[in-house]
């Protein structure tokens, strides 16, 4: 499964399925199970239809029919939030651990 066509062309895996969505949505938009299911089904179908090593199947889904602006901005400039300082990351991790420790007692 890929949303980065040029990287996949370079890596050249045996079988690939490309969906032209912003990175982080390789199998669809959040809370749209029908779209997600269709993308995954299409990808699985490629196991049976791809006959040439290195082939990339391009799926027809469009992120936004009325606005292709994301294609200009995805993964540019301030796209990625700054990596949190170590102390902040440690706090987030401690909270995550505590949350699951609590819920396992229930």
């Amino acid at each position, binding site marked *: *499964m890929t949303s980065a066509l040029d990287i996949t062309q370079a890596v050249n895996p*045996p079988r690939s399925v490309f969906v032209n969505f912003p*990175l*982080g949505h*390789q199998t*669809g938009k959040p809370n749209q199970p029908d779209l997600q299911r269709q993308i995954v089904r299409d990808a699985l179908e490629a196991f*049976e239809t791809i006959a040439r090593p290195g082939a990339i199947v391009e799926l027809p889904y469009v992120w936004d029919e009325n606005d*292709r602006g994301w294609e200009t901005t995805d993964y540019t400039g301030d796209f990625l939030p700054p990596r949190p300082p170590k102390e902040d990351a440690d706090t987030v991790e401690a909270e995550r651990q505590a949350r699951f420790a609590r819920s396992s007692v229930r």
Partner: protein
Amino acid sequence: MAVEYIPRTRELYSSYAPYKWTVNEATPPWTPLHMPIAEAKLAVIGSGGILYRDQPRFHREDASYRLIPKSARQDDLSIWHFGYRTADAEADHNCIFPLARLRELEATGVIGELADPAYSFMGGVYSARKVRDELAPRIADELLKAHVDAFYLVPA
């Protein structure tokens, strides 16, 4: 128009030494699938930094992987990854790790069996050597032991 992520990544990380992208020019290895996908045992592998419950987070250059029970629900999973915008995937992991959808496709017979567990790693490992020589062989070994027929890799 497909976005060209290689030049964008070069630009985004311009303060670092240029990343050496993996380029494989030879014809890729080919293993035919000797059965319909409806009869195959399929494993899913995500590189979006998915963690199950209290599994330890990933670290910088972390080439380890986690085993995710195939029964995992939204509330069981979290994400530890700094290389993509994770908000949508945090709201619904099926954006990058479609476990719920694969369970449905197993239930309706589209795939023969969804292998348990699923596999997860954090794709922001800058050493291609580490991935090629350490991470990939370990996961491949797991897949062989689990007797899966096919695997579905979802990078993020």
